[in-house]
């Protein structure tokens, strides 16, 4: 790598960390194509670097989100039970399932849910946010509140449709173990779409969780020799920088703006997933 290429990779990674921290995703959608198409990096090393990118976004952003009460740690830990189990099943299934069809299916689902995102574009906080918590939400302590600096008030919320959210999270884990993609967008969709948590809480809690999902499979990539410091070092430093900036920003923007940042990421992941399924390797 020339110093110019190092600088280019660093700059792209800052953007990936920034968008990832705000949208609740790992930034692989930006990092992988930038490395392979932009800098001619081998796809395996690019995926290894994207695992590093996911963990860097997660740890860098969540440090602030946990402190600022944007991350709901109980929601996160409860749902990690589903994602880690799903990820193990996915990794075990990866050997026996031909994933081409699954890529296309996942891509179609993601593009479909983009429509739902558009229909919610006008909504600042979920209408049920102030409704009383269900029995299950109370027992699992999945009702809480977060400080919204933009609205200038404390916003109460309670998780809805918890079993559905749990199943979707299991699928999110399964998919990331099986296909190594889409882990963050599926988590945000499960929390925002199914469980009706406020968008910022969904994004911050997804950020908190994706590092754990990625760590579960990081050993595989390290062992395979897919993590090359020459590529992964500028990616990690750039993503951490971007994630730290993004985590400061989230407090001050509206839930609508977060959705506006999430939507193109969702569409891009959907399109890239379908492209992979149809054999256009990116």
């Amino acid at each position, binding site marked *: 790598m020339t110093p110019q290429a190092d600088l280019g990779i660093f700059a792209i990674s800052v953007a990936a960390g920034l968008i990832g921290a705000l949208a609740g995703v790992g930034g692989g959608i930006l990092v992988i194509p930038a490395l392979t198409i932009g800098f001619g990096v081998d796809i395996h090393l690019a995926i*290894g670097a994207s695992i590093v990118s996911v963990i860097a976004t997660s740890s860098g952003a969540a*440090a602030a989100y946990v402190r600022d009460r944007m991350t709901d740690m109980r929601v996160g*830990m409860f749902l990690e039970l589903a994602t880690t189990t799903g990820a193990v099943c996915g990794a075990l299934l990866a050997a026996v399932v031909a994933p081409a069809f699954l890529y296309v299916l996942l891509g179609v689902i993601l593009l479909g849910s983009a429509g739902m995102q558009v229909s919610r574009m006008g909504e600042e906080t979920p209408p049920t946010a102030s409704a009383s918590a269900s029995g299950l939400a109370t027992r699992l302590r999945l009702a809480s509140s977060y400080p919204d600096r933009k609205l200038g008030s404390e916003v109460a919320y309670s998780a809805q449709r918890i079993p559905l959210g749990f199943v979707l999270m299991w699928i999110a884990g399964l998919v990331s173990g099986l296909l190594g993609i889409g882990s963050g967008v599926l988590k945000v969709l499960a929390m925002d779409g199914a469980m009706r948590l406020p968008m910022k809480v969904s994004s911050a809690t997804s950020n908190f969780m994706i590092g*754990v999902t990625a*760590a579960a499979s990081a050993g595989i990539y390290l062992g395979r020799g897919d993590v090359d410091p020459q590529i*992964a*070092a500028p990616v*990690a*430093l750039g993503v951490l920088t971007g994630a730290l900036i993004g985590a400061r920003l989230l407090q001050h923007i509206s839930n609508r703006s977060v959705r506006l940042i999430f939507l193109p990421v969702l569409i891009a992941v959907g399109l890239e997933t379908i492209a992979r399924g149809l054999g256009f390797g990116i």
Partner: protein
Amino acid sequence: MTPERFREMVSGVLIVGVVVSAAFIAVGFVAALAVGWQGSLLGAAAATSANTDFSNLPRRLATLEPAAIAQLGLATLLATPVARVAASVVGFALEGDRLYAAITTAVLLILLTSILVLR
């Protein structure tokens, strides 16, 4: 333990993980700009093993290979989420929340199993 202290502890684990790993990665990266990704700050012979091999880090760290220093940082970064889950187990237990201490312990066990088994 109060919820505030719990959050500070988990946030602290993440900050330490991020700062320590970023420091090693940055030192390794800058050193690589000086002596190359195959070089050594002690002027030892060029590395014979690939920079993607994490199994011989201690020996390569001893000769101050920039790649090995960056790898130590990357390994620290990859271990940070695991440390965060472990800290959460302690936090929920000290908070007296048995249900979540149990849930988090289960997550930690699944995580450690997957790291040890899936390789």
